[in-house]
């Protein structure tokens, strides 16, 4: 029965007009039960059904907008990925036709695809872990009130709210080997021999205890940037959660002689875990698809060529829409597989805990 109602309302040409009539009845609820129902069917407009209709009517405009600006483009991407489409001839091309699997061949066969996927993964894991860890440390440090806490709390959100283009250029200049403050101070205070080109060094040799390591410097730098930019986000959520932890819990542990690390491990962390899990998923998704930060800092060079930047390159440098779409699709599928794995392994656990 619910089904038929849904269809009816869903397909209505002017859904927005309906709730008014429905709700008008709603107002005089007790007075005229079934008064709006001309047919003899028993209570065709119960409160639940009216609510159902109103709900569908209200959600329709939002669904339509999301459908037009999100769902349709995604579906079209899927189509494009299987078509031989270049930007020049796409104007005259029909929506269907020119089917091919070449795009995927081009994507999987193109040099550097697998390494790019690996880079994306490293970047995402590093930035997600970094931002949540720093956010957690910040939330713990700012938990107790102190003079100027409000001020610091506000200023700590600056990296998150400031425009990415502006802060990326600040980092670029500060890290510049020619006139950057970091290299200047590094040479003066830490005795660096040569200026370090943070954003254009693929691998940097470090000597530690007589051993030589190669570290992917440019990649680490963009991970640091991402950590810096998004730790306020994690901080906000974790602080809100921390402040909702009942005082009694910690007091009790304190009375029992638990040290701060023990209180954190056994009292606070279990309380924070659901939020941390949520943040991990959110940040992972966001970072995995991230384009701006790396494009602005390194342009995708020096071992930072994440997939999102490659999509852009396919699209704008080669005008190869089909390959760009295929590449984006592969990225989305990989993300979904990873999330699926995550929920398969941890989803149950989190549910059990909460």
């Amino acid at each position: 029965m619910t089904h038929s109602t849904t269809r009816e309302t869903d397909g209505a040409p002017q859904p927005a007009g309906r709730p008014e009539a429905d709700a008008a009845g709603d107002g005089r609820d007790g007075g005229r039960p079934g008064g709006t129902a001309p047919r003899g069917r028993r209570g065709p407009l119960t409160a639940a059904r009216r609510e159902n209709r109103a709900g569908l009517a209200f959600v329709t405009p939002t669904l339509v907008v999301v459908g037009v600006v999100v769902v349709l483009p995604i579906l079209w991407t899927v189509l494009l990925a299987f078509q031989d489409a270049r930007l020049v001839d796409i104007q005259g091309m029909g929506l269907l036709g020119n089917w091919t699997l070449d795009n995927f061949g081009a994507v999987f066969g193109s040099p550097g695809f697998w390494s790019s996927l690996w880079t994306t993964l490293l970047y995402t894991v590093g930035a997600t872990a970094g931002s949540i860890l720093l956010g957690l440390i910040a939330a713990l440090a700012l938990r107790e009130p102190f003079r100027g806490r409000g001020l610091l709390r506000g200023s700590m959100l600056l990296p998150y709210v400031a425009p990415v283009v502006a802060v990326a250029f600040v980092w670029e200049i500060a890290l510049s080997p020619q006139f950057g403050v970091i290299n200047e101070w590094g040479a003066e205070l830490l005795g660096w021999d040569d200026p370090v080109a943070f954003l254009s060094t693929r691998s940097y040799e470090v000597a530690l205890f007589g051993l030589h390591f190669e570290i992917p410097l440019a990649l680490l730098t963009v991970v640091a940037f991402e950590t810096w930019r998004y730790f306020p986000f994690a901080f906000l959520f974790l602080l809100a959660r921390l402040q909702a932890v009942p005082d009694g819990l910690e007091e009790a542990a304190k009375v029992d002689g638990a040290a701060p690390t023990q209180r954190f491990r056994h009292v606070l962390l279990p309380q924070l875990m659901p939020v941390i899990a949520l943040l991990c998923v959110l940040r992972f998704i966001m970072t995995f698809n991230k384009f701006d930060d790396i494009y602005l800092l390194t342009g995708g060079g020096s071992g930072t060529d994440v997939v999102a930047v490659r999509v852009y390159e396919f699209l704008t440098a080669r005008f190869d829409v089909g390959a760009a779409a295929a590449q984006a699709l592969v990225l989305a599928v990989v993300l979904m597989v990873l999330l699926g794995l995550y929920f398969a392994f941890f989803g149950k656990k989190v549910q059990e805990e909460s």
Partner: protein
Amino acid sequence: MSDARSQVPFSRAQFEERLFGVLRWVVIAFLAVITLAPFYYMVLLSVKPIDALLLDPGRLWVSTKEFTLSTYEEVLKPTSEGGQGFLDMLYNSALASVGAVVLTMLAAIPGSYAVSRLRFFGGRHVSALFLAVYLFPATLLAVPLFVMFARMGLQGSLVGLAIVYIAQTVPVSIYMMKNYFVTIPFSIEESAALDGCSRLQIIRKVVLPLAAPSLMATGLYIFMIAWNEFLFALLFLAATPESWTVSLGLQQLANGVEVSKTVLMAGSVVLTIPVVVLFLAAERLLTEGLTSGADKS
């Protein structure tokens, strides 16, 4: 037992208590430095002449003799007078962002009200669907939107850009407003209904005024996302300099050869100030709007 404890001069708890007492201040100082220093550096370089920067890159202050605002002059002056035309770009950015706020709110308010208030067929799935939007990378949307807009001749138009921004902002807006709508007591709506208000009147006269703080916060958040957005501006507007937003203009400026770094920093300050001012004015509102619900999980 008690003997053993009194013999230990320094228990683990005491030791840690002191250690973290000190570490806490170290962390606080560190956080203050990493969040504020980049912005200080940005403002500092923007009021320095380029020679002073090149001569002594490590110096973190500016002498009164050097202090200059000519960088801002160059950035803000219209291109016809040899400047970079950032004033026009500020206008473009404001237009696209305000457009995005209005369009997104119009699209998101009914949906978030329905999801939070009304039980209807598929309601639970709908709210999950809105969040699933984030699973798809902006780059995935970028390709077809790029083609679509090229076809419709909307390429290079700010209206088109504002429409694209809806996709970026609708899910988070619904999430924020939904969390607020559920906190409004049901009984208030019921009494309005008893007084003869229709559903639409209830929303307009009761729910929306009560939710004003949340609407403000959501609007501001949308504004910030749109103002800071870069990828779509780059894709859609790159070919039409007269409709560049500030973010795009600044990035294009950086690609220019003859532009000094200090001018670039002045541009960054111009880009950053509106967002930061808005944020500081409404900080509490925003942070609460964003995290409401997080403390209940």
